[in-house]
């Protein structure tokens, strides 16, 4: 079978965060879109009145990331707050993994049942297997589903509190760096995020679990670059 030459289908867009000010665009030529060759797509039109927003921070309490473009915030919100656990502020890439987490980490009934029957469900959607312990489940996922042994969204429950950057026994090499536990957000526990789903575990924003966070109204946005 022959191989086609590399196909370039250029989709133009803004880079992650745009640091140019509007005035730098004024003198650039405006080209009308029109391909020179089929693969060519011209650079984006630069208009002087370019809709931009001043830098802003994420509105989820406890999250201190700063953005200069709405797209970036959209991505950030979806990835880190879309499926977040209100009890320990861990974020998950999907509702399915969040459900598994809440069940296994925060549901005392689950713990009781787990003593008597296989409760740890395989994390692959569509695989019906259940296991006695999370270790057994991990073995299954590694051997049967060829998942990595250090899969980031299947950490065993540890006794430490949320978001402490202590060592996580499952991080096997230092090459993973200071990422800590995957998808941790910030040091203050989050209140119920403004997500569409409702769980009995969602905590009303008036209740604090005593993790020491101040819940006052912040008048100055501290730019916390720690993370």
């Amino acid at each position, binding site marked *: 079978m022959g191989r086609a030459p590399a*196909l370039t289908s250029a989709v*133009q867009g803004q880079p992650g965060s745009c640091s140019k000010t509007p005035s730098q665009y004024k003198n650039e030529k405006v080209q009308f*879109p029109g391909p020179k060759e089929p693969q060519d797509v011209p*650079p984006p039109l630069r208009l002087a009145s370019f809709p931009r927003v001043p830098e802003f921070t994420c509105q989820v309490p406890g999250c201190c990331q700063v953005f200069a473009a709405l797209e970036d915030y959209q991505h950030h919100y979806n990835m880190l707050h879309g499926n977040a656990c209100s009890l320990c502020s861990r974020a998950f890439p999907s509702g399915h993994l969040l459900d598994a987490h809440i069940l296994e980490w925060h549901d005392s009934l689950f713990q009781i049942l787990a003593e008597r029957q296989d409760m740890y469900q395989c994390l*692959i959607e569509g695989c019906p297997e259940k296991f006695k312990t999370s270790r057994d489940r991990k073995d299954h996922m590694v051997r049967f*589903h060829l998942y990595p042994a250090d899969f980031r969204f299947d950490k065993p429950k540890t006794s430490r509190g949320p978001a402490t950057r202590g060592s996580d026994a499952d991080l096997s090499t230092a090459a993973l760096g200071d990422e800590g536990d995957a998808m941790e957000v910030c040091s203050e526990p989050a209140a119920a995020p403004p997500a569409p789903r409702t769980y009995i575990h969602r905590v009303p924003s008036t209740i604090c679990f005593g993790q020491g966070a101040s819940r006052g109204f912040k008048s100055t946005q501290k730019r916390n670059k720690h993370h």
Partner: protein
Amino acid sequence: MWTRQPRRPGLMACGVEELRRRRREREAALRKARREQQLVSKRLLREDDPEEAGGESSAAVLGEAEVQEFLRLAQRGTEEKEREKALVNLRRGLQHPETQQIFIRLEGSMRTLVGLLTSNRALLQLEAARCLHELSHSEQSVVAEACLPATSYLLTYLSGHSSDFIELCLYTLGNLIVESEVVRQQLLPQGIVSALVACIQSPHVAVLEALGYALSQLLQAKEAPEKIIPSILDSLLPQHMLRLMQPGPKLNPGVAVEFAWCLHYIICSQVNNALLITHGALSTLGLLLLDLAGAVQRTEEAGLELLACPVLRCLSNLLTDVAVEAVGGQMQLKDERILAALFILFQFFLQKQPSLLPEGLWLLNNLTASSPTLCTSLLSLDLIEPLLQLLPLSNVVSVLVLTVLCNVAEKGPAYCRQLWPGPLLPCLLNTLALSDTEVVGQSLELLQLLFLYRPEAVQAFLQQSGLQALERHQEEVQLQDRVHALQQIALRG
């Protein structure tokens, strides 16, 4: 929470659709090339940065030290912007095959990249995914295989909510699937099928198009009939695919095209076409054909014509499948509007896409071969003459037209009564004057049927110098027997 923001806030509103349309046209051209030459294509999503406004990528090949430095900065930099910039630079460098080779040979590089892909910084995740995407585009399977540690995460992210990110992951997976059987062997146990089932329920058109791409690559793998298609048929994917091909106001042509091709690959594998029938494939495809005819009649430039080829092929192949016949699949396509739709499409093909005429006629052949009802409809809708008008176009078309007419004629005397008197005989005498053996051979078959069920036609044949027309071919080895048989009948008559 947010409606989908346009990718380029500064561009004119038509820009997005224009690009999509152009991309679709490129892909149509590629598919054509693929059909004709069995080429395999990958997709590349690449966002142009302002710094690359010069057109050609201005990124240079990176050396080992630079790759290491960028990775180190991305992972351990203290400033957010610094980390992003490092990854952006790495990504640009990875556009070059040399940099890709350097990257994969560097110890710990993929591990670091995967760490960034799963980090808590959304923008780093995105850039890391873009780096992977560049790697996926390599034509060397060793580079694709170096991406194996990332696949479980790419699959996990398909169930997420960020549609841009999902789109990127899907195109990356699709490229990796094309490149390496080892990758495919890992993706299946990792649950790619259930990940795709979760993802195909997304309402985002871009995600669905990307999914169609990834799925079509999976289905074209050489081991697909044994190892991949059975799992796909076991899942909810076929039902979702057919749902996305339902004609109506919600039909998106770009999405439907992708899944029509996917359906085509599944049908060609012949793993379990009867199952597709139970999911309503025949009726969906039939309705889609009617919709297409309606659209071309209204001369809409809706991109629907790209659907014509896969829909025709799907229908034709389904009709030939023995298992389908066993469940009476043929019976579902008795609607004579299908014939009218086909002939409307023939007119359109004549103008715009002549290469599709044989495909349409092939479907007509399969429809008429075992259906007396449709043969009757062909006659009652007066479609014989339009059919005959297609004869002079090419030898391939002639053979198909004559075969369809044979299908009608062999149904018996009542049918042949409608074929003669009429324009058929003069046309046959014209085709007998040609030299192509297949065309002449098929003409002889048709004459035999006509003389059998309509002996009165023999006289007319003789009066129009039929015998002389036959004599031309009596030395031709492949035609001799039939010529002699016809000469006998004619002389007796």
